[in-house]
């Protein structure tokens, strides 16, 4: 027997950071299934080049920082996949690459990589793409007639109007709710299939890969605001239905808001953070300039999260009095 020394504990109670990331990765891959079945291999190539770019950038950042090649955690893959899923399928393949490079090299590496990033890198990358190439980010092909997209080449297509854009113009989207549930409508690649996103949310919650406070508060506040201030003339319930199912709201709630790293530490702080992000998103839908942008709301909430933490401290009295 060749015994070694090791530090306790020798049992673990919770998933490790890496296994949490792997669960998220699995959930994200599940979102690729339906588009691949429906439109051919292009969703896979898109996700592939995006993840590859993030990997290359991660290695590059590590080279610059420490001189080593090693990539310690799979967070780059999560960033790459989220970015690919937020893009329209008909976007040129360099678009997720550019935003992935931005996400890793500007939003993550300068702050000390995984665990240190004050902003969700994927949200920052998507925001960058939406600001620099709004035309490419918000032009979707019309999925009503089934066809296959080329795997690599840029494609010509008939543009469709997404539900989010219709709502922005104050009209009621003429998309069947069932189509919205399965993602059979014009919109970003991975955010449409509400049922799959919901299943992913349950997976993340029950495998304890994500905390529940922020996403639940986020969705609750979004639903509440949608019911109270509908953008289109309809019953509150219809408004809630269209607001929650359109754009990247659900996807953002499950995969961007639930990211623990840029969120507050405390449980109640996470709830406030989610609620703040939800309020910001709904305000953005009412007054903002783009048709959708969960990522902008997430960035804003990320910046607010240290302040939320501090407010929670103040309320809880988590600062010992001198000589107390």
């Amino acid at each position, binding site marked *: 027997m060749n015994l070694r020394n090791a530090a306790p504990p020798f049992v673990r109670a919770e998933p490790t950071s890496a296994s949490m990331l792997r669960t998220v990765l699995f959930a994200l891959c599940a979102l690729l299934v339906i588009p691949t079945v429906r439109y051919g291999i292009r969703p896979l190539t898109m996700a592939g080049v995006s993840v590859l770019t993030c990997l290359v950038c991660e290695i590059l950042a590590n080279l610059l920082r420490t001189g080593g090649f090693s990539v310690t955690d799979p967070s780059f893959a999560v960033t790459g996949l989220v970015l690919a899923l937020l893009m329209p399928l008909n976007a040129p393949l360099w678009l997720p690459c550019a935003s992935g490079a931005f996400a890793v090299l*500007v939003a993550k590496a*300068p702050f000390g990589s995984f665990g240190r990033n004050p902003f969700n890198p994927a949200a920052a990358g998507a925001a*960058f793409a939406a*600001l*620099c*190439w*709004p035309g490419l980010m918000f032009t979707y092909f019309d999925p009503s007639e089934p066809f296959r997209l080329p795997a690599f080449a840029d494609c010509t297509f008939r543009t469709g109007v997404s539900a989010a854009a219709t709502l922005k113009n104050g009209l009621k989207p003429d998309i069947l709710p069932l189509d919205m549930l399965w993602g059979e409508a014009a919109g970003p690649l991975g955010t449409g299939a509400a049922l799959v996103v919901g299943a992913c949310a349950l997976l993340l919650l029950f495998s304890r890969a994500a905390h529940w406070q922020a996403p639940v508060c986020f969705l609750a506040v979004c639903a509440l605001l949608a019911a109270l201030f509908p953008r289109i003339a309809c019953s509150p319930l219809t408004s809630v239905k269209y607001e929650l199912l359109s754009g990247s709201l659900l996807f953002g709630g499950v995969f961007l808001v639930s990211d623990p790293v840029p969120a507050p530490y405390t449980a109640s702080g996470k709830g406030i953070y989610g609620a703040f992000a939800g309020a910001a998103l709904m305000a953005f839908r009412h007054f903002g300039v783009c048709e959708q942008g969960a990522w902008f709301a997430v960035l804003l909430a990320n910046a607010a999260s240290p302040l939320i933490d501090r407010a929670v401290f103040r309320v809880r009295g988590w600062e010992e009095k001198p000589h107390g």
Partner: protein
Amino acid sequence: MDNGRVFLRGAGAIFRNGVLFRNPVLVGALGLYPVAAAGFGMQNAAALSILFVFLALPSQLLLCLVGMLIPKWARPAAVLLVTAAFYLPAARAVQRLLPGSMESLGMAAALMACNSILYSRAEEYAPEHIFLAVGADALGCSAGFAAVICLVSALREFWLTGGVWSSGTPGSGIGAGLDLPFAGFLLAGLLAALVQWINIRRADRDPREV
């Protein structure tokens, strides 16, 4: 003779510090507004740089001469009054050199009068140093500011239009969006990281230099 050479060498060091090692924008975090908000075209950048040098040099030299006569608490007001006075000829000069640029800059040009580089140098540095040092510092700061804003502007203009100094056409560049202030902050951040890296390298090589 020897004294003069020492002075000149000192002035050279001050100038170099202003341009690179202690760049007011990238190390001092001063005067970020013009870089972030207006630095997306080379013509803007050139106009602001010229305006800056015309404001900085005379106002700092004047304050170097008379600054010590003013009580310390009233000095900020004196600085503001002096820059306000020099703003008129400086703005006229820029308009003569680059016709039309002042109009296109609008608020950004107007707010150069209370630029924080000008203010902090004129209030803290100028009254307490000798004439030559103040002159070198004013020139160095101007060059440093001009270098940063021109670099940032060139990058952003190329991204937006595919050319520099109005040689490209809007929309034919790589993408849109970089005329927004965020790009200015990001580029300034990356340049600041570069300068910090250079400073770290210098300190590692020779700790006495810093």
